[in-house]
Each structure stands twice: as structure tokens, then as C-alpha cells.
């Protein structure tokens, strides 16, 4: 079984996000890049399938982006147990899902993966499209929102999360591109041995040439406040006194 895991570098939750002088992108200098949340679940799922299926199974972590932002993502994937990495180097800011998916499809086609796993959504762009687009472009079966997988012969069965507590099983013939929902498993931490071994693993760097963007950002802005919000700041005692006043006197809930 040959499995690719699309893993994206995204700004950490703690990073301060500021619009840069172009007004179209963020000031990356202030940002700490980490692995997108659902992608680490996707990697874990791939590693578990490899461990269960055995044989000459292979897990390949694939990332696309600038060298500075993505280097940690590949290292982390290799340290956790991926066998090799593919880095699709793209120094321009491409935000168009179709262009991004074409870069993946063009660069991964010759690999003939049985499975491509991706996260169901990147926390920065939030398109929720890449895995399905790549699947269609490479003529694979596709499914999204996977919260359980079972490999059965020439098929993979996927339990899909639907809205409001409903689920559905779908069975997909290989090759298949599946996007993974968070919570599907318990992602492992890299071991010391894994971290040491990662340096010796193969990393293949490919130069990307993005096509024209079919959709693009006009500008980035801070969302407007929808409500009149009372700000409460100060030291802990001041804050506690203010919250007490709200709970007791304004809302009368205690």
C-alpha cells in the first residue's frame, strides 16, 4: 500500500496575524508555522494502515509551500514514521484551490498512490477542497469527513461524519483520495529515535509552477464586530469583581 499524506504548514493558533503592507497577505515574519490540525490525524491514520497492512507499504508526506514555512512540517512527518517526503516548492502565495490541486496532481501523478490522505480543511485557507480536487484530477474515488477507516482487500471502507450526529459508511475502490476529520485517532508524538532517523530519510524537492489563479484575494481585513462588546481587562482580582457584577446584577444568574 502506497499512501501519500498532504500536510500543510499553517500559522499556529498563538501567532499574531497581521495584514502586511500589500493588504493581500499576512506579515509572515510574525508567524510561527505548525502542522495543520486535521493533517496530523491524516498522517496517524496512514501510519496505522501501513502498520496493519504491512508488506512493502509506504507512507509519504507531501507538502506544498515556501521553504521557510514548510521545513518543519516535513521533518515532523518523517520523525513520526513517514518513509520519505515530497516537497513541492512554491514561493508565491497561491490561494486558489484549483491551482493548488493541479500542482499536487501534476507532481504526484507518476507516483501512482493507492491512497491520498488529506486533512478535511486547512485552518488558514479553510477551503475544504484540496483532497477531493486532487482525487478527481487523478481519477480516484473520493470521500470526506472520515472518522474511521477499514482496509478490506481492494477496497477501503470509510465512516463519514454527517451533520448533527448522523454517519454513513462508504466503500471506495483504490486508488482513493480521502480527507480526514479530526478526532479519528490519537496522533503519536515523534520518538527520539524517529527524530534522529528523520535526517537520513529521502526528501524529494520539486519546483512548482502555479497556473493562473481562478479565484484570488482582493484584500484581507479584520472582521467587524457584530455586537456592542464590553471589554473587561485588568489584573485577575479586578476581572473577577467585574465578572461577579455581570453574573449577579446584570444577568442575575447567580
Amino acid at each position: 500500500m502506497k499512501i501519500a499524506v498532504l500536510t500543510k504548514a499553517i500559522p499556529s493558533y498563538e501567532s499574531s496575524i497581521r495584514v502586511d503592507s500589500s493588504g493581500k497577505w499576512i506579515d509572515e515574519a510574525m508567524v510561527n508555522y505548525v502542522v495543520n490540525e486535521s493533517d496530523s490525524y491524516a498522517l496517524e491514520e496512514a501510519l496505522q494502515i501501513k502498520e496493519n497492512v504491512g508488506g512493502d507499504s509506504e507512507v509519504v508526506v507531501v507538502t506544498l509551500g515556501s521553504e521557510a514555512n514548510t521545513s518543519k512540517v516535513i521533518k515532523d512527518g518523517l520523525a513520526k514514521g513517514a518513509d520519505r517526503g515530497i516537497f513541492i516548492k512554491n514561493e508565491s502565495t497561491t490561494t486558489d484551490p484549483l491551482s493548488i490541486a493541479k500542482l499536487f496532481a501534476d507532481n504526484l501523478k507518476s507516483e501512482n498512490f493507492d491512497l491520498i490522505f488529506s486533512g478535511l480543511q486547512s485552518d488558514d485557507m479553510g477551503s475544504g477542497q484540496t483532497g477531493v480536487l486532487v482525487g478527481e484530477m487523478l481519477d480516484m474515488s473520493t470521500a470526506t469527513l472520515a472518522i474511521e477507516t477499514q482496509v478490506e482487500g481492494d477496497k477501503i471502507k470509510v465512516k463519514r461524519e454527517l451533520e448533527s450526529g448522523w454517519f454513513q459508511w462508504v466503500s471506495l475502490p483504490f486508488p482513493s483520495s480521502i480527507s480526514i476529520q479530526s478526532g479519528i485517532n490519537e496522533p503519536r508524538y515523534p520518538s527520539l529515535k524517529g527524530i534522529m532517523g528523520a535526517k537520513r530519510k529521502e526528501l524529494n524537492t520539486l519546483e512548482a509552477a502555479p497556473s493562473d489563479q481562478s479565484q484570488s484575494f482582493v484584500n484581507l481585513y479584520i472582521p467587524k464586530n457584530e455586537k456592542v462588546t464590553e471589554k473587561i481587562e485588568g489584573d485577575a482580582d479586578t476581572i473577577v469583581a467585574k465578572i461577579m457584577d455581570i453574573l449577579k446584577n446584570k444577568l442575575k444568574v447567580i
Partner: protein
Amino acid sequence: MILVVLENQRGKIHPFSMEAVAAGQKFAEQLDCKLFILCLGEKVDDLKSQAQNFKANKLITAQHTMIDMYSADGYSKVLSDVISELSPKYVLMGHSYMVRDFLPRVSAKLNIPFVSDIISVDFNGGPNFSKQVFNAKLATNIEVNSEQALLSFQSAAFSSDDLKDGGPDEEVQFNVELSSNDIKSQSEPEFQESSSGVDLTAAELIVSIGRGIESEDNLPTMQSLADAMGAEVASSRPVVDMGWLPPYRQVGSSGQVISPKLYFSLGVSGAIQHVVGMKGSKNILAINKDEDAPIFEIADYAVIGDVLEIVPKLTEEINK
């Protein structure tokens, strides 16, 4: 022409589809063009009878035994065929889990951009579509550089209160062509997992726990606050994913939808998928150490501070 595609949710039109129809009527008016509504696949007759009320130029049905049950392969093939034949300028749907599953396939098949999860539309110029990016900390206006586009709307981007009734001018059948080669994957019927949990919707007071409590070890501290207030504990998705709390405590698009008298969040960032589950709360009080946290955009009271420091003191004060 604008094409709105209706989605079936267990026999009824999905609420997001109603909003998409309202969007379609607005688009047709603003761009001065025709509005077509498509009933596709599963339970098509239910959809059709419920769609009789919507003002539109055409009501189209596309039915075939091979898509009587939802299938990403079948739906994407049929919708692609409909789009190729009718050439709509925009195709509109709600940003539901089904749309996430098959609409990107249509985008790739036809090479038409899909702008997903739109929160509002500006008809001056463009039209331009805004959506949240960077974990809801920023928003962006998106411009489409293509003749056609597929669009999906986040809930409440348009309101079904604005729906204009009147019914379709004309009804037509689309001639669906599907063969077994088109359907690679096999879906099984939808099922619900027994939720042996609490009904959060009944609670007047909710203390909602987010990843910002930093560690499972801090959970009892947060629960003590809920106990002191007589509140029910709810949580964000990562807290459930990490196994700190059971799934039935989760609020949001994949959890419960609540509207308590007070929603009091501790270290919740305010991602859209969480917010859709609690924005109806009468009062929102949020503690977060990041003053740019998106939860503050909808909060009545925004406490900028550290939950680990504030919560124990607050609990002590309430218990006095």
C-alpha cells in the same frame, strides 16, 4: 442564469438550501438574470413538492435510480452534465457536509472555481465574496477570474426569511445519463449513533470549555466553576477529539446547537464551526487571553485574561 441546487436532508429540504434559494433570488434580482432551481437525486419528489413555493423561472428535476442514495460519484457526474448543458453563471448551494463531499469534484471536472464557505456577498462591482480565513482572525474578499463559479454559503449568509414565494414558471425534467462505470464508490444508508448524553439544549447556563484550558489536568478546575454556577458543561471539538470530554458535550456544526441564557466560554477561539452552534445564546461571556480571538466579535462581554488564573478565583468568589 443562476442555478440553485437543493439538498435533501432525510426527506426535507436542507435548511442551508433554503438560504441558498434566498441567495439565488437575490442574485437573480441584482444581476438581472434568470433563476433555475435543481432538485437532484435522493428523495427528489419530496424536494420537488417542497420547492413548489419558491419563486423561480424553472424547477428542474434530475432523477435516476443510481442516485436514489447519495453518491459523490453520481452527484458530481449529474451536476456536471446539468452545468455543461445549461451554462449557469453561478451555481449556488449551502456549505453543508454533502457539498464539501462532492462539489469540489464538479469544480475539477469542469475547471470552474469553487468559492466555498462564503459569509457575505457584495454586489457592487464584482460580485465579490467574503469568507473567513486564518482561523477566523481575518476575512477576505474573493474575486473570481472566470466566466462561471460554484458558490457555497455558510449558514446565515442569507436568510430564509427573505424567501420570495410564487412558485416556478415552468417545470422540466433533466435527462440523466448514468452508467455503472460512473459510480465507483458504494454508500450505505445514514445512521445515527445513540447519544446517551445530556441535552445541552435544555440548559439555561452553559460553561463551555475550549483547548485554551491547556491541559486535561485543568478540567476539574473548570468543572468546579460550572458546579458553583449550576451550569452544564459544554466544549469545543478539540476537547472532545483529545478525549477530555465525551462527544455529547460538543457544541457546533458537528455537535449540538444551543441558545442558553448565558454561554460562558473558557479558552474557546470562536471558529465558525463552533460559533454556528452557540451564536443564538442570549448572553455571551468569553474569557480568552488573545484580544484578537474571533469569539470576541460575537461576545457581549469580552474578558481578556488567563482562564487558569481567573477561574479558580471566580469559583471561590461565587462559593463565598
